[in-house]
């Protein structure tokens, strides 16, 4: 079942999502999931680089808007201003030697140390921690790390909004699809699913949702008011 660790991801974000990321219109939380996938996926890095070229080409052919006449002189006078000290690097170097290292930018977002995370149990075998994202308005968008025990099945559910999932370690299956490290899945309200973590170890995922999930199983739906996802 398990693919060798050096194997590249096989499930990728859609071209439209990569386009949004290259154009700069994704939320910070979605950008976190996409950029972390890019760290694990040379193929999608290549696509994003191409889409950035499209941005450059569109910028070259946009109908120009006149700048104030003194704009260039004002700016030339500022060129010798001292350069402000760069913001302190928040990049972390911790944890990169681990067996399944968390890549940037996620590593810095969680403070660099997977071991120091204070997990909260959601249900038996499933722990989560909310990843702090965004200084500005994030609305209902939430980024979370999920740790799912071997063989644990997530109760059948759907989403009012969308859910991005990026596998960081271990794997899970959803119907006939297998997800491993680096694989990216996107689901919207039309998908009603019940993913199962692989038997051979814990599964670590980053999820980004823009609305709470809804349990849809016959009995589980009674629990909707109580779940903490």
């Amino acid at each position, binding site marked *: 079942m398990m693919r060798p660790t050096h194997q590249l991801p096989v499930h990728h974000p859609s071209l439209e999502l990569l386009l949004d990321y290259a154009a700069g219109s994704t939320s910070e939380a979605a950008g976190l999931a996409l950029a972390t996938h890019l760290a694990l996926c040379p193929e999608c890095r290549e696509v994003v680089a191409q889409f950035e070229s499209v941005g*450059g080409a569109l910028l070259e052919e946009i109908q120009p808007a006149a700048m104030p006449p003194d704009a260039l002189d004002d700016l030339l006078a500022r060129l010798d201003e001292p350069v402000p000290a760069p913001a302190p690097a928040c990049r972390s170097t911790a944890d990169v030697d681990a067996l399944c290292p968390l890549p940037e930018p996620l590593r810095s977002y969680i403070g660099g140390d997977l071991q120091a995370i204070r997990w909260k149990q959601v249900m038996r075998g499933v722990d989560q921690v909310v990843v702090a994202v965004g200084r500005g308005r994030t609305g209902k968008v939430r980024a979370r790390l999920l740790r799912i025990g071997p063989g644990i099945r997530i109760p059948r559910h759907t989403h009012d909004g969308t859910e991005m999932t990026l596998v960081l370690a271990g794997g899970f299956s959803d119907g006939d699809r297998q997800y491993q490290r680096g694989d990216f899945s996107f689901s919207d309200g039309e998908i009603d699913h019940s993913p199962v973590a692989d038997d051979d170890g814990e599964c670590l995922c980053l999820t980004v949702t823009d609305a709470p999930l809804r349990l849809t199983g016959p009995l589980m739906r009674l629990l909707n008011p109580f779940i903490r996802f």
Partner: protein
Amino acid sequence: MAMEHAGTLRSPAWQPLAGLISGLVPAGVFTFYRNMPDVPSPAVMDGRPLDDLLVAIARDRDRTAFGLLFGRMAPRLKAYLLRSGVGAAQADELVQEVMLMVWRRAGTFDPARAVASTWIFTIARNKRIDAIRHDRRPEFDPEDPALVPAQAPAADRSIETAEDSARLRDAIGKLPVEQAELLRLAYFEDQPHTMIAQQRGLPLGTVKSRLRLAMERLRRDLAGS
């Protein structure tokens, strides 16, 4: 592309090379510039490829090159920022900040990786995210030891040449109108494709398929050469 080469050859910096081929064009064209080497005509200098200007800024801290780059790019950056919904005064300010970053970071521009307009686009895009949405833009770190490298680095296709860039502009010009329109919305309006669909009252599936067709076509045009 042919235009840009012509511009390069006609600019004073290239006079020795221009001299070699001056037999091919009317002599007056070159003697005119030789007579006034210190006052290059902006129209002629304007033909210098953006990449050359940026390299001159990085290498020589060349203010003339910076002025020319500003003349070419600042009005376009302003148009880009206006399209994303900022007022004219804020757009002017943001353009100044973007161009100041261009001056300061010119040394990190690598003409082997991307053309100047692409590099400037990424700076403007990040400035827009920072200024308008007050968000950070999460990015992978190319030096990250945890980054999974390309398996065939020799075949790394993220290298963008001036030819790619010209072909790309050409390909954008040939897109069906409804695809080109959506493409510009996606890049200029600071809205993910899902919001574009909502705001324009278009079915999400239509937006997705038009964008996908446009992007697949552009990628094919970039790859096939």
